[in-house]
């Protein structure tokens, strides 16, 4: 059990695959080369999607977009142990995790283009829409987890949030509730070390985020978030624990966002290039590549093949999303309530009247 052996109070971090691609054989999880290759492909798709998304925003074809470059291992490995019946409740930097759990890239693109239907999840895909208010959604995950426990359907809810969200009161209330109700919930914190521009040492006085679990009476584990094997192993343990009725866990995945907070942010204002370069050397994709290469499971030809295939997949998704017609402006009133309120109906009428005046003018 990682939760027993790694004490966050002692700053002990689970690490299996080192930055130079060496694997700690004593801790190796049950992942064969083919699975690692699959995860590598998934991480590469996320990276390509992310870069394309930034480019789309710069061209005015995407709205403000939250980048995830550098955090691909967190998302690929943490979703890998999940089953379709499990839930994902995420923040805005988890496009990759949502995709891993079944949300098509086309839909995700639609969301970032500002179309409400980007949040209309396909049937059977247990993913909640992106939650923008920081720290608001872990409560929803606890609700889903508790519902799963009540229905005895064996599902687990996983919620993703950042280091900044851990200072939010709602996250405290969510973890407390999950602890006392033994809800099958996994709290997955991607500590990318900055809440926009606020460094984590100015965010909280606790040396690790994992140790915050002590306040709620469940395990907290610190894991190298750029290490797919460690994230997978720790996540698998937490998911199994939740599924067999053992209650929630908190996972702190120590990682780094290589890009900006969003396309509306300039990170050079608050961090220096040397720091970014250091983390480039700890790129989660690079270490998997080194690992596979050493085992004869990676070649340049395969890499080119992958790049081509994944780029095609990303381009296709973006094109498909752009082909969806723009919704009419009054659509914005439609999906807040099952029955629109009188105030909303009034606002809709006012908007339509204004649009008519504009057309005549």
């Amino acid at each position, binding site marked *: 059990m990682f939760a027993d052996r790694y004490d966050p109070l002692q700053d002990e971090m689970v690490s299996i695959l080192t930055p130079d691609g060496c694997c700690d054989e004593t801790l190796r999880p049950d992942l064969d080369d083919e699975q690692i290759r699959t995860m590598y492909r998934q991480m590469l798709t996320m990276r390509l999607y992310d870069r394309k998304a930034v480019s789309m925003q710069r061209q005015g074809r995407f709205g403000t977009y939250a980048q995830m470059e550098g955090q691909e291992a967190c998302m690929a490995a943490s979703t890998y142990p999940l089953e379709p019946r499990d839930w994902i409740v995420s923040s805005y930097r988890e496009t990759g995790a949502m995709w891993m759990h079944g949300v098509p890239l086309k839909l995700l693109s639609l969301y970032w283009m500002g179309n409400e239907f980007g949040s209309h999840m396909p049937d059977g895909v247990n993913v909640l829409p992106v939650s923008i208010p920081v720290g608001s959604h872990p409560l929803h995950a606890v609700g889903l987890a508790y519902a799963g426990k009540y229905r005895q359907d064996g599902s687990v809810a996983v919620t993703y949030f950042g280091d900044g969200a851990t200072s939010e009161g709602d996250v405290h209330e969510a973890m407390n509730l999950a602890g*006392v109700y033994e809800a099958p919930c996994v709290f997955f914190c991607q500590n990318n070390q900055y809440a926009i521009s606020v460094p984590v040492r100015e965010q909280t006085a606790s040396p690790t985020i994992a*140790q915050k679990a002590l306040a709620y009476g469940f395990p907290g584990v610190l894991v190298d978030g750029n290490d797919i094997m460690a994230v997978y192993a720790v996540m698998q343990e937490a998911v199994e624990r939740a599924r067999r009725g053992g209650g929630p866990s908190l996972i702190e995945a120590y990682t780094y966002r290589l890009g900006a907070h969003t396309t509306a942010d300039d990170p050079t204002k608050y961090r220096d290039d040397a720091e970014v370069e250091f983390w480039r050397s700890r790129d989660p994709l690079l270490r998997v590549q080194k690992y596979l290469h050493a085992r004869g499971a990676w070649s340049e030809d395969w890499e080119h093949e992958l790049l081509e295939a994944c780029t095609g997949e990303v381009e296709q998704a973006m094109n498909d999303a752009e082909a969806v017609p723009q919704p009419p402006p009054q659509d914005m009133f439609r999906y807040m309530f099952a029955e629109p309120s009188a105030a909303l109906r009034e606002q809709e009428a006012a908007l339509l009247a204004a649009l008519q005046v504009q057309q005549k003018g």
Partner: protein
Amino acid sequence: MPVEAPSAEKLLDMYARMWRIRLFEEQAEYQSSQGKVMGALHTYIGEEGVAVPACAHLQDTDYITSTHRGHGHCIAKGADISRMMAELFGRSTGYCKGKGGSMHIADFQVGMLGANGIVAGGFGIATGAGLAAQLRGSGQVAVCFFGDGAANRGPFHENINIGAVWKLPVVYVCENNQFAQWTPQKDVTLVTDIANMSPAYGIPGVQVDGMDPLAVYEAAGEAIARARRGEGPTLLECKTYRFHGHNFGDPQQYRTREEIAEWSDNRDPIKQLAAHMRDAGILSDEQDADIQNTVQEEITAAVRFAESSPYPTPDELYKDVYSYDIG
């Protein structure tokens, strides 16, 4: 740094304050039963051993924030019991001119920033007071009293977190009386000890027997001194018990008479302090009777003051809500 033991004078003062709370609350309950008190009443009986020894380390310039169960904090910090009683009676001579009632008593002159009807409502105010003190470099300290139920609320988390990051001179004192209204603590929090939540904030967590005034005096003294030295907050949990219901009229079906008797008969903080003072030769029977009689007279005078004071007039209704007049 060890906390100096309280002097005989200090102990006598603490003892009188604890009686002042006890007798004030008993009188308030009686007056409530007579229909004289407006609104809900939450008494501090049984918890006197927390607020009094904690506030014994504070000056009038230091701050406290309180809860819905605020009379004890007011009295411990030196508020005027006549104006308190008048407020309970809804009279214009009360602290809020008779318009706030039991849960809104504040006295800025003695650093009492207010009782609060909102569970966990005091955290932001205490933390803000601590920030103000830090910015002014005044050496003031803020003590935030709250209950076990409030520990599950977001403001607990957000304020202790930022108080810890900024090393604010605030002491967060949990009066763990084991019930959030009617709900036992174990039903709403997985950890038994609130003090054990402190690693989440990287600050010391200290647990103390809240029925033992001397133990609270020492632990609070250390935490307050630490805050004053600029070393940041402490989470101090005082295990305590309210002898009466959550509010006056609470049928208390969630606990047994035996449990209540176990605490009130054997662990009463006033009795414990009296026993200590007698052993130390500080308190004679005569002195004890004198203290209680004097306090009783104060309470009687407070009731007389309240009863003889006028009610606010209807045109006062919209006044004092905002700094400007909206009436």
